[in-house]
């Protein structure tokens, strides 16, 4: 079986500075894959390049199709979705309209059931459906960003630092939801600094340092790996208690 997302020998550069060097990765169907690494390792850059926000040199294939010539909007149409680091919500519009536009590329007939699914996953959004996105709390904004992405019924959801700036209890909630997505048939590519929480729910993991993958394997093995434990897990104070 071929992978859902396959990236081979990818380079991403800002001007002359290469932020991502010769990276290859795969995400299979029904799989949660995480990329962990320190701040500035190139994780966000890689996700943005896979989505088409940044230009990428190398190969990116999704569901057997070469993405090289496709714009962001076409990649969305194929079932690839990114919840960006800054969430990129429509701040002056209400929750319901944000979600509605998440289904912009889907058939209108499917919208009602998508709303039901997303509200079941995030009941809080249903309570706040008439509230403007800009007035939501950080956790609710993250839920809305994920909900909006799920409205388009993606096959692969890419999450960029969903725990950033959120209280541990909300982080736990969001990670539980990410875990539930797998059983709903959505693959997840998760970029996280909170390595411990990410490794708990992931099937496989890549460790990124200075723009390159230095380690990869099943999440359980990575969690036990000595170097990783020292670099990324040792200083986590919030993760364990929250999950």
């Amino acid at each position, binding site marked *: 079986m071929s992978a859902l997302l396959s990236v081979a020998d990818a380079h991403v550069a800002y001007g002359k500075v290469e932020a991502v060097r010769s990276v290859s990765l795969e995400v299979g169907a029904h799989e949660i894959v995480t990329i962990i690494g320190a701040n500035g390792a190139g994780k966000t850059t890689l996700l943005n390049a896979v*989505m088409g*926000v940044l230009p990428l040199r190398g190969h990116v294939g999704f569901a057997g199709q070469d993405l090289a*010539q496709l*714009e*962001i*909007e076409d990649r*969305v*149409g194929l079932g690839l*979705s*990114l919840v*960006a680091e800054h969430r*990129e*919500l*429509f*701040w*002056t*519009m209400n929750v319901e*309209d944000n979600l*509605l*536009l*998440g289904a*912009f*590329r889907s058939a*209108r007939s499917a919208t009602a059931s998508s709303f039901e699914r997303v509200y079941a996953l995030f009941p809080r959004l249903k309570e706040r459906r008439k509230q403007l996105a800009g007035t939501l709390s950080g956790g609710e904004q993250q839920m809305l960003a994920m909900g*909006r*992405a799920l*409205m*388009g019924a993606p096959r692969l959801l890419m999450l960029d630092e969903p725990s950033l700036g959120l209280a541990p209890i909300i982080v736990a909630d969001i990670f539980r939801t990410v875990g539930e997505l797998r059983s709903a048939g959505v693959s997840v590519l998760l970029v996280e600094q909170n390595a411990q929480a990410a490794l708990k729910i992931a099937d496989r993991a890549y460790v990124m340092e200075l723009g390159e993958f230095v380690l990869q394997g099943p999440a359980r093995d990575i969690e036990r790996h000595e170097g990783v434990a020292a670099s990324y897990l040792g200083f986590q104070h919030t993760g364990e208690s929250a999950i």
Partner: protein
Amino acid sequence: MNTTIMLFLIQDGITNGAIYALLGLALVLVFAVTRVILIPQGEFVTYGALTYASLCAGQMPGTARLAFVMGIAAFAFDVFAARRALRLPLIARAFAANIILPGIVLALTSVLVGRHPPVLVNVALALVIVALIGVFLYRLAFQPLAHTSVLVLLIASVGCHLAMQGLGLLFFGAEGQRGPALADTAATLGPLRFTGQSIAVYTLTIAFIVALWLFFGLSVYGKALRATAVNRLGARLVGIRTSLSGQIAFLLASIIGALSGILIVPITTLYYDTGFLIGLKGFIAAIIGGLVSYPLTAIAALLVGIVEAFSSFYASNFKEVIVFMLLIPVLLARSLAAPAVEEEKD
């Protein structure tokens, strides 16, 4: 000055102000969605007015041919842009929208032009022709530049304005034209006399503002347009094409421009270059609204209209000067209130 004259001037100001309001709203909309400062808005006014006047006079307007030629160019652009992934349905769709549609409009115009169709048919034809020009203008001049800075877009905008003004001279000649009024009735209310045309101006302006409000508040495409204005990257991430939003914005702007022209041309004689000045007054209103606020723009437009009416009464030589001077206190206040902002990159 007595009350009658004052009421008269206010009435005149509001009639013109209503039209500036429409134009100002279109400018704000286009800027929010595409970051283009739409200088050619005035040419949409001229084209709409003079196309309508030509049709009523039984002449073939050159704008119908222009729309057809621009459509062919737009088709070439579409095919070139999709050259790496050419598929038949894609080409068929581009062909239908860019060549067949303006072709039908051109054929319809040349069939109807000598036969003196009803006024409303001429209005509709003029609107459709200018709307096509507006959408193709976006496709040809602005869509290829969509990722560039506001300054580049502004320069392209000035270029479009100059080119379209020159073409206007070619199509309509240097003499001004007037068109027939949309309604011949008149009503009197106290000392004021409302002509059918001014009533048409009020009704259509209000109807258009309500229609826009409904479009943005209720329809998915209206919401998609707002979303693009609020967060361009966010909109792309849910699959809303920037080019689609841009086309809708230009479609609305060109229809609004043409409609304004059709409303004005029975009141004043319009020349091939009059539209620019009218568009600029909408632009003043839009600037007072900070290029973001729709209600502020509409109110400012009424103010511009009234100031213009009074200054043409007291100092008609300085009419334009006084109106454009309104900008100075606004710009001063805005630059003092807000710290210098770097241009947003995206």
